[in-house]
């Protein structure tokens, strides 16, 4: 018994308690944004930072999209939130910012940096600003989400004639013909409209609203509008294509699975794709699959693409010294003339600053430069609209219902009623 007690006491002393802050130690939580999910990449960035600011220690925690939100929710409730978090406006501005958990960091948007960012993307400041007028996000990179096709299969099926290689665009008619050609050539499942969860839902959203130029929200981003005439028509088109066997709907998988199926050659297109995904999926590509990024089809062939913006926000932890240190970190990572482009390069996306220029040509990620062709189609960020979290769940539920045979107009109205309350 005494031995047991002694053992317990020893163990009690060994177990590490929460680190007590000695110097300025700040915590950074990062979602897996490109290579920011890799410890080695992030360590290198921090080492560069410490060369300039040796007095500031940075602790990193890597989040994932499966459980990261639960973890942040818990941290908010337990008041153990990190100092800095790296993600997009749909979480930082629309969720945590709107709930008053984040700090206004408008002082990072100096005249100089704001002008630099505006030169690349005029609407960026608005995207990073909450409904209360406070700025919750300082962006590092952005991208447009697109889709991807297997060029080799398209060539084999004689479907490349429907693709505008120059602009990477196509019309609905061309898209349908391409799918038909694939099916006739023996590719049984050209593409899958996945709706098993919220993973990669930007792909199905953009696919749906592009078809007949619907908009996902109204211009003021206060209301979801996929129950409009154009929205219903677009959704109906998707259902028709599925019924005609040109596409397959699948409520059992999410974007990650759909991408895996594209990479192993089961399908010839994936509706979820972007510059960074090219990099992360390189290794699993089956022999002979040749990914070619494409815009989503639309009636007139002029797409409006969803975008993603990623940047840093500060949680309101009430420690001035840490806030100051955290701001130093953000400034270094995003604004430093040498580090800034490197930080953006690590994400695989495009820098939000015009002055950084083309960061991919002539590098290992040469292929990413290719994605600049989509920048003109960027339709702005609507993911900061109210009730966004509810909307994400309702969206894949809507798709599940219409593909299970529900009436499109009715179901779209149910969806709109559920997401536009409060």
């Amino acid at each position, binding site marked *: 018994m005494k031995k047991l007690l002694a053992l317990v006491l020893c163990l009690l002393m060994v177990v590490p308690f929460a680190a007590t802050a000695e110097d300025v130690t700040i915590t950074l939580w990062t979602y897996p944004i490109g290579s920011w999910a890799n410890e080695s990449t992030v360590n290198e960035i921090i080492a560069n930072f410490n060369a300039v600011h040796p007095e500031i220690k940075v602790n990193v925690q890597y989040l994932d999209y499966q459980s990261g939100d639960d973890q942040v929710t818990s941290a*908010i*409730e337990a008041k153990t939130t990190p100092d800095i978090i790296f993600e997009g406006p749909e979480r930082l501005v629309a969720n945590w910012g709107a709930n008053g958990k984040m700090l206004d960091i408008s002082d990072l948007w100096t005249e100089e940096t704001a002008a630099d960012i505006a030169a690349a993307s005029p609407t960026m400041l608005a995207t990073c600003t909450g409904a209360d007028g406070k700025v919750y996000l300082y962006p590092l990179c952005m991208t447009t989400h697109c889709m991807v096709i297997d060029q080799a299969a398209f060539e084999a099926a004689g479907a490349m004639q429907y693709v505008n290689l120059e602009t990477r665009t196509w019309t609905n008619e061309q898209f349908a013909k391409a799918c038909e050609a694939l099916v006739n050539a023996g590719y049984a499942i050209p593409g899958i409209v996945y709706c*098993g*969860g919220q993973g990669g839902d930007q792909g199905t959203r953009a696919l749906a609203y592009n078809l007949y130029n619907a908009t996902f929200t109204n211009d003021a981003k206060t209301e979801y509008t996929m129950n409009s005439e154009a929205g219903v028509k677009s959704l109906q088109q998707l259902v028709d294509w599925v019924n005609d066997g040109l596409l397959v709907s699948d409520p*059992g998988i999410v974007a990650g699975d759909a991408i895996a199926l594209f990479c192993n050659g*089961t399908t010839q297109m994936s509706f979820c794709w972007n510059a960074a995904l090219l990099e992360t999926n390189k290794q699993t590509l089956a022999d002979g699959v040749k990914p070619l990024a494409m815009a989503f089809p639309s009636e007139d062939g002029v797409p409006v693409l969803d975008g993603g913006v990623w940047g840093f926000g500060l949680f309101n932890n009430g420690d001035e010294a840490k806030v100051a240190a955290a701001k130093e970190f953000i400034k270094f990572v995003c604004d430093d003339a040498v580090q800034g482009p490197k930080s953006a390069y690590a994400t695989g996306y495009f820098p939000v600053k015009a002055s950084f220029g083309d960061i991919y040509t002539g590098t290992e990620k040469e292929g990413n430069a290719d994605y600049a062709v989509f920048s003109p189609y960027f339709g702005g960020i609507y993911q900061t609209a109210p009730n966004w979290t*509810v909307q994400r769940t309702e969206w894949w539920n809507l798709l599940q*219902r219409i593909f299970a045979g529900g009436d499109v107009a009715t179901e779209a109205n149910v969806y709109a009623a559920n997401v536009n309350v409060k």
Partner: protein
Amino acid sequence: MQKTVSLSMKAERRRENIAGYLYMAPSLIFFLGFVIFPMGMCLFTSFFDYTMTDFTFSGFQNYARAFNDSIFTNHALINTIVIVLVSVPVVCLFSLWVATIIYKMRDFGTSFYRCVFYLPVVTGSVAVTVVWKWIFNNYTGVLNFIMKNMGGMLQDIGLMEKTMGTVFSGNWNWLGNPATALGCIIMILLTTSVGQPIVLYVSALSNVNHSLIEAAEVDGATNMQVFWRIKWPQIMPTTLYILVITTINSFQCFALIQLLTSGGPVNSTQTIMYYIYYNVFKMQDYGYGSAMGVILAVIIALFSAIQFKLAKTDNG
């Protein structure tokens, strides 16, 4: 003389009380501090409109909301009960069946099978679900692969007509079809929950009084008679224990759904536990989640009470 006895009895009782509480103290402190207290808090917050930014008293509104929420009443509640009603008897009967076969084997056989059926428990739900997700995959999954080959084989030898082709087409979307998704979830739940009951039944069966069995066999009783008349009553306490544990586990089936279907397709795998998780952690609607948790706890308690009652009347 009498006086001293009563005095010593009093002292004795006091001693028992003090000793009892001293023994209880460590577990009681942990139990009250980290189970009962948060449970009370949960009950308390279920009467509040409680979100990340809000905390206002709302009476029974959360409870009323739960019973008016069609996802809760029409899907979560029903699916949960289906899972319990299917998995509890199946787990009990299957593990009993396995146990009756393996307990007679040699030492190695028994240990081997016991281990095999315990494997999914020790491997952990995250790892096991990753594999099952692939097994059920519509396009590259092994189940469809086997079905397709089997279908082809059956057709080749003329055992199957062409009309049955859809079943064996190899295009069955197991987790994506509302008709089969819940079945798949239950199937995986079964593999992860028979381990302990089998271990328990094997030992319970080995402890059954053998002289009774021999006597019955001499009398010419059939296998079935020996089992139901002699063995079954003796392993009844084990059965009760398994029933209660399996019921609680089935009610709390959560990780599988979180990792595989997120409650879909079209809410066909929505359960109370997942819906609570969704409201608390995704919607940050703590008050509503707490209210549903209280409802679930009451339901589980009722089920357990019924099982205890039934078992008692059976025994008594």
